[in-house]
């Protein structure tokens, strides 16, 4: 504000001091000469100035809207008119034209009159301040000069009344007044702020300014006529009286212009309102584009704003990757009606026209609908990003007026923004999902790494080799070795169904179960049957484990094993690779006695150079580019070709072939190989 806070505290005291000074001056001198009148009026001006300073403090504390200002003006003029009427009555009651000082009664009357004078000063300064605020409202250019010029001419013409009164030079007053009035007209045209009002506010303003024109008119007639108030004021200060008149004239001019201009603005008010909502909606949305984590929240915002922007009554979104075509974030519409409207919009069109905005009369959908869902027109806009349609934004309205070009443009712009927002939300979601998945898989891989044996045990008469290659999405392969009492050696190879962390958990559980069971049992069938009974408590119905549990009896030179749904065991003997496939269903496939019934016990008297190859389906189901399986035949051939070599070499040969075969395609499952070679006799010979 212009009247800054240079003197903050003593303002009210200054006002009071000036007022007392003025009163004393008036008590001592009666304004009979031009000089005394001038001093009197200068003192009045000082009081007026301090009154403005004090009131300005009230205004500078917060921003007032135009409507509030105009409303306060309305109130103020009403109050002043009532005051003027009252003063007229007061004047005729007291019946003084000239206040006779120094009589006891007169002192009281002059005090009371002076009080009213001060009140009028306060009202006038308030009036002036409101005018000033209105003038500077929403001004972009520097227009201070205009207002200051007006103020200067107002004061000059006010003081010129003294010249008129005492010297009869009325032309000076006239000249200044003419200038002031011209400036009033110019300043009254600077009312660009009405453009920023909503339609409702404009209607209010129209009413208020009409009222104000009348009130200012009444006020002028009261001041101008030769009645009480005019006499009182003239007696107090002719300049102030004239200033009051001019300010009221400014009021009439200002609000006449305001009335007419607002009237002309009214028809476009609605369009302006819409543009304004459009702009704010887009602002909100563009802020959302960078914030939204919650897809539902975004959808709600989009449909909410779409209704505002397109003058519609209902809105909803359909996403193309959702096969059910369920409306997302529907506003003011049910699924059934939305579905009907969609089919009307989409039915007669070919796919390519759907990449543009489509409109349709949907009154046909109104059969069997309640009043609430009675829509006449609907429009759809594609939500495109990177030339791909991700979905559609629908709006529908109940009024029987089609969507116009404005609505179309709004919908177009809005749907563009929305599709960016939706795309961003999707990308964010998928990257969060991906990161979560990767972290989960890291944990799963770490678990698996800790569960699997860190080294291969040394067993007399038995060459052992193992290979484990984890897939990116942990496949749940598991193998382990156990040194058992009575010179026995056990092993397990297993494959848990499913992938990732859930498979890793089951694996960990399985290991715990097997480790504790081998402390008590050494019969493969018994161990698997008991394992099956234990996992029933924790395993989900859809999960299962395939496993082979085997025990080498190193003393009896025998192998015992049972197979629970696992791939075959390959046995190489006499230059021939044989598939050993004893009956048995996977762990977790059934928890009834059938599991035990179907589980066969296989045993074999070991012979020198017997090779056993155990594997998981990651080996045989390794895929090449044509999605062909590596297959058991190939596996058998490699083993057969290298049977005379060490198990480590055989394992290496298999892995080389597998990686050559599946080159260029990602490994989708864990690969586990377990190889044993019986080397008893050789050692006996040497030993």
């Amino acid at each position, binding site marked *: 504000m212009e009247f800054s806070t240079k003197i903050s505290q003593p303002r009210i005291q200054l006002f009071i001091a000036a007022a007392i000074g003025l009163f004393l001056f008036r008590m001592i001198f009666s304004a009979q000469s031009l000089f005394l009148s001038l001093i009197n009026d200068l003192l009045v001006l000082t009081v007026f100035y301090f009154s403005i300073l004090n009131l300005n403090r009230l205004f500078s504390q917060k921003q007032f809207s135009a409507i509030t200002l105009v409303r306060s003006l309305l109130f103020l003029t009403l109050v002043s008119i009532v005051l003027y009427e009252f003063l007229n009555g007061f004047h005729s009651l007291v019946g003084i034209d000239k206040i006779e000082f120094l009589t006891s009664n007169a002192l009281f009357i002059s005090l009371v009159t002076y009080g009213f004078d001060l009140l009028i000063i306060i009202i006038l300064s308030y009036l002036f301040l409101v005018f000033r605020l209105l003038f500077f409202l929403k001004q972009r250019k520097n227009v201070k000069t205009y207002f200051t010029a007006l103020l200067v001419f107002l004061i000059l013409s006010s003081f010129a009344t003294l010249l008129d009164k005492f010297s009869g030079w009325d032309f000076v007053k006239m000249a200044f007044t003419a200038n002031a009035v011209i400036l009033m007209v110019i300043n009254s045209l600077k009312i660009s702020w009405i453009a920023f009002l909503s339609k409702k506010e404009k209607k209010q303003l129209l009413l208020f300014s009409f009222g104000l024109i009348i009130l200012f008119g009444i006020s002028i007639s009261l001041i101008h006529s030769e009645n009480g108030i005019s006499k009182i004021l003239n007696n107090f200060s002719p300049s102030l009286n004239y200033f009051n008149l001019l300010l009221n004239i400014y009021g009439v001019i200002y609000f006449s212009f305001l009335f007419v201009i607002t009237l002309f603005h009214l028809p476009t008010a609605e369009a302006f309102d819409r543009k304004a909502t459009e702009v704010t909606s887009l602002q909100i949305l563009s802020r959302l584009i960078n914030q939204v984590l919650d897809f539902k929240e975004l959808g709600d915002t989009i449909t909410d704003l779409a209704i505002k922007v397109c003058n519609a009554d209902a809105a909803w979104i359909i996403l193309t990757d959702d096969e059910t075509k369920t409306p997302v974030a529907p506003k003011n519409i049910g699924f059934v009606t939305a579905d009907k409207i969609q089919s009307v919009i989409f039915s007669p069109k070919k796919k390519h026209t759907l990449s543009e905005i489509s409109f349709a009369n949907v009154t046909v959908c109104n059969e069997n609908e309640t009043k609430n869902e009675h829509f006449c027109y609907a429009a759809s806009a594609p939500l495109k990003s990177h030339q791909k349609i991700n979905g559609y934004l629908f709006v529908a309205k109940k009024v029987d007026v089609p969507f116009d070009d404005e609505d179309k443009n709004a919908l177009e712009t809005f749907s563009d923004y929305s599709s960016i927002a939706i795309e961003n939300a999707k990308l964010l979601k998928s990257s969060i999902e991906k990161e979560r998945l990767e972290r989960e898989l890291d944990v799963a891989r770490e678990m698996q790494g800790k569960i699997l044996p860190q080294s291969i045990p040394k067993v007399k008469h038995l060459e052992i080799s193992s290979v484990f290659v984890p897939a990116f*999405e942990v496949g749940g392969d598991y193998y382990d070795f156990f040194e058992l009492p009575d010179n026995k050696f056990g092993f397990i190879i297993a494959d848990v169904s499913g992938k990732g962390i859930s498979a890793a958990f089951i694996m960990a559980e399985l290991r715990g179960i097997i480790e504790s069971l081998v402390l008590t049992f050494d019969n493969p069938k018994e161990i698997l049957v008991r394992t099956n009974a234990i996992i029933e408590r924790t395993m989900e119905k859809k999960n299962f484990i395939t496993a082979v549990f085997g025990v080498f009896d190193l003393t009896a030179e025998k192998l015992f094993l049972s197979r629970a749904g696992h791939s075959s065991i390959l046995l190489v003997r006499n230059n021939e690779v044989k598939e050993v496939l004893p009956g048995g269903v996977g762990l977790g496939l059934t928890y009834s006695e059938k599991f035990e019934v179907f589980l066969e016990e296989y045993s074999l008297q070991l012979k020198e150079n017997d090779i056993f190859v155990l594997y998981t389906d990651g080996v045989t189901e390794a895929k090449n580019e044509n999605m062909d399986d590596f297959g058991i035949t190939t596996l058998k051939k490699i083993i057969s070709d290298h049977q005379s070599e060490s198990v480590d070499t055989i394992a290496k040969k298999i892995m080389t072939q597998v990686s050559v075969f599946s080159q260029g395609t990602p490994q989708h499952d864990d690969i586990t190989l377990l190889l044993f070679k019986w080397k008893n006799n050789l050692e006996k010979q040497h030993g």
Partner: protein
Amino acid sequence: MAEFSTKHREYGEVNIIELNGYLDAHTAQHLEHAISDLITKNKFKVVVNFEKLKYISSAGLGVFMAFIETMRTNSGDIKLAAMQPSVYNIFDLLGFPLLYEIFPTETEAVNKFNQ
């Protein structure tokens, strides 16, 4: 990602689900939805036609295990039919034929229900 789709048909009381493509951990959910849909509609007699299924992973097998109990307790069943040899081999290794009814053709599976 491997392609997978299902088709649903009804043959009297029997619901036939045709599988097409590759059924693995990623596409298993799709089949889960298809079967749980039938359960919500109180349809418990299901024949799964494997004719066009090229591959099934352990997660794919798990889908049948997840639902068979519900079907059987509601006097229905999931019967499997028309598998390619490679697919049948996987079921066979696991011991499915001992617990589930697997038929060479869809008609045989449907007839079994109507007996």
